[in-house]
């Protein structure tokens, strides 16, 4: 085992650290630490700043406008970003559709869409889930029927995150009925301004508007916007499996921000003149949390090192997703606990009332964290995946 960075990587770290020493507004901090997304304008501004520095797409190859960084450099970059309270980059364009476009898309699609992703000129959302599908994605019913040079889309999508903001959407739709449900599904790139698209906000328990229902009524999409071949969309989605591992891994690094948030909250609050952070009970809980976060960070580093070495990390990606969601939930809950009775002060009812320093975001983060064990493959599904694929245990 070797655990020291080589000099070039050390120099790179300094460079990244210098970059993040400025340009991260203080008002982002609490939301970022709570695991909440910044506003779209803020995320766009952040992405543009990265793109201007040539760092818009840390995981992409150079030829498509990416940095071409090694996994270790990606790890360094994210760690420094996290330490500086920078946000995670919005991932739906960068990590979910971008890589599919540059892997399976035509040259025309690459030229047309990739720069807009890196430079945050476009905002992509995902049209995969459907109302009754849940964890059973392959049961999708949205149809795309070829009509001349277009596909005509009809159907309903659920959980379209940031659909209310997006300029584009990548949609899985059924182009034919096949005996195997995973077949006959195609992937289409859709301009959100196309007539026939209706977005309806879905209110969620965290009181933050981030997701939507999307209705597709005779939405005409140019056939040129088909990614790869017709009927193979499900397969293309699989390229995501490898990348999603990296996405979760990168997000997991950001848990060190939650540790900081808890520490600050517990340093501010006193009981009988003693700071909460100095009380053995709370101290032990925070220590336990920090230790578990440390274990996860090191698992992430191992995924990165495996990727660098070209080694398969096996089920480590699913494990990181599992543990990350558990720790997101535990961390925000600990944070809210540190607020004491004022955790009940979520929103002022009149003007000019002071919320506690980290409200409402600490609470909103705690509520939001509940969905992290549901989306992107619920914790139960992750368990199934690990049991079946890695341990070879069959139903």
């Amino acid at each position, binding site marked *: 085992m070797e655990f020291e960075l080589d000099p070039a990587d050390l120099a790179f770290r300094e460079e990244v650290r210098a970059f993040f020493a400025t340009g991260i507004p203080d008002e982002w901090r609490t939301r970022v630490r709570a695991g909440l997304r910044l506003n779209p304008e803020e995320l766009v501004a952040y992405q543009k700043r990265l793109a201007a520095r040539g760092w818009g797409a840390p995981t992409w190859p150079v030829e498509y406008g990416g940095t071409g960084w090694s996994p270790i450099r990606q790890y360094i970059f994210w760690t420094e970003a996290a330490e500086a309270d920078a946000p995670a980059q919005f991932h739906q364009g960068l990590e979910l559709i971008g890589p599919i476009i540059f892997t399976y898309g035509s040259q025309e699609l690459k030229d047309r869409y990739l720069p807009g992703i890196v430079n945050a000129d476009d905002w992509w959302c995902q049209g995969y889930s459907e109302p009754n599908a*849940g964890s*059973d994605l392959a049961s999708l019913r949205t149809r795309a029927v070829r009509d001349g040079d277009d596909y005509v889309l009809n159907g309903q999508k659920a959980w379209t995150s940031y659909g209310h903001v997006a300029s584009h959407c990548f949609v899985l739709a059924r182009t034919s009925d096949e005996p195997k449900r995973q077949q006959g599904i195609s992937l289409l790139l859709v301009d959100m301004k196309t007539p026939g698209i209706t977005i309806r906000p879905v209110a*969620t328990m965290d009181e933050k508007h981030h997701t939507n229902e999307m209705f597709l009524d005779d939405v005409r999409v140019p056939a040129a916007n088909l990614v790869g071949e017709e009927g193979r969309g499900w397969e293309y989605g699989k390229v995501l499996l490898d990348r999603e591992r990296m996405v979760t891994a990168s997000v997991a690094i950001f848990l060190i921000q939650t540790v900081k948030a808890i520490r600050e909250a517990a340093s501010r609050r006193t009981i009988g*003149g003693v700071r909460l952070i100095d009380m053995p009970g709370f101290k032990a809980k925070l220590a336990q949390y920090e230790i578990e976060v440390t274990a996860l960070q090191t698992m992430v580093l191992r995924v990165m090192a495996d990727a660098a070495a070209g080694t398969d990390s096996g089920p480590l990606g699913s494990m990181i997703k599992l543990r990350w969601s558990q720790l997101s939930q535990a961390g925000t809950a600990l944070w809210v606990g540190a607020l004491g009775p004022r955790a*009940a*002060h979520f929103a002022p*009812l009149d003007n000019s009332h002071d919320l506690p320093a980290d409200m409402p975001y600490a609470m909103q983060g705690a509520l939001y964290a509940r969905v992290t064990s*549901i989306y992107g493959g*619920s914790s139960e599904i992750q368990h199934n995946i690990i049991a079946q694929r890695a341990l070879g245990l069959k139903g």
Partner: protein
Amino acid sequence: MRFTYSDEQAMLLDSILRFGQEHFPPTERHRLIRQGRSGETDAWARMADLGWLLLPIAEECGGLGGGIIELMALGEGFGRNLVPGPYMASCVLAPALLARGGAVQDDLIEQIGAGEAIVAAALLEDDGGYDLHHVATRATGSDEGWTLDGAKAHVEDGGDAEWFIVPARTAGGVRDRDGLSLFLVSASAPGLRVERFRAVDGHRHARLELEGVAGQLIGSQGDALADIEAAVARASCGYLAEAVGSMEAVSAITLDYLRTREQFGKPIGSFQVLQHRMVDMTVACEEARAMLCHIALSIPKGDAAFQRAVSAAKVRISECGIYVGQQAVQLHGGVGFSDELIVSHHLKRQMMLAIAHGSIDHHRMRFAA
């Protein structure tokens, strides 16, 4: 020995359940809660008509003298349908404190019972945690009466209160057990700044700053702590029963969902992992209910045993309630996280109930003391 409600108590619970379904069915509830107090006034008036606002008030104060078990039936009923409103604060906690005496107080209790006044007790201070004896707010007496100076960090359900009951020091140091007195303060009193907040469960709380605020002494001077602790323990029983009602309701909703929701071609309740999770939720509900019984069993053993039992129940019921709420959301998946179903509202209420009148950590150490 009997672990079920008496016929009368069961009828009370039954009426409350019907009341909740009628006034706060899940969809309506949502809309009403967004309106703040005005969304609850009809229901409150109805509760007054039914005599429920008088129920927990002592007979000698003009109430119906309901005991802890009646309070539990009430709380359970509220919890099952997540009935909103400042019931425990205004109809249980406040009258118990006002009972310390005085003619004005009797009038106020009458108004509370008639649904004409909402009163909240301002018990917690910054730097005090959930310790009821931690009071830095000072009362100064003069010929013209008492004036209060200080701040209260959180007033449970104080967002709509017309009156506040404010503990203040007439003697002693900040964390002394002696020297506390209670004062009645009008929400519109000069020198009083009231900040109002909404919690994630729709309850409305307050924070107070007092600068030379006039207050009327309630009862005798300097010996209020025991009454405060007893009143809070009593009100907590209502909340604990509410938590049990809520977790049983959301557990039942989840069981129903497991039976009917299909994935991969079969009901999700056929998956063993979800079955066992549902079992753990059911066990948690049983444990929580057992802790309510434990409180009831402690009553004949005197006030110290009762308060210790309440702390024990607070720990376990809160843990169970949060667990059940979280798992209910988890097992419902995406729709569980949505605001549309009642499921996530149960979780949010459990989270808030868990810190009302003392967190789990606070009560665990209080039990251990």
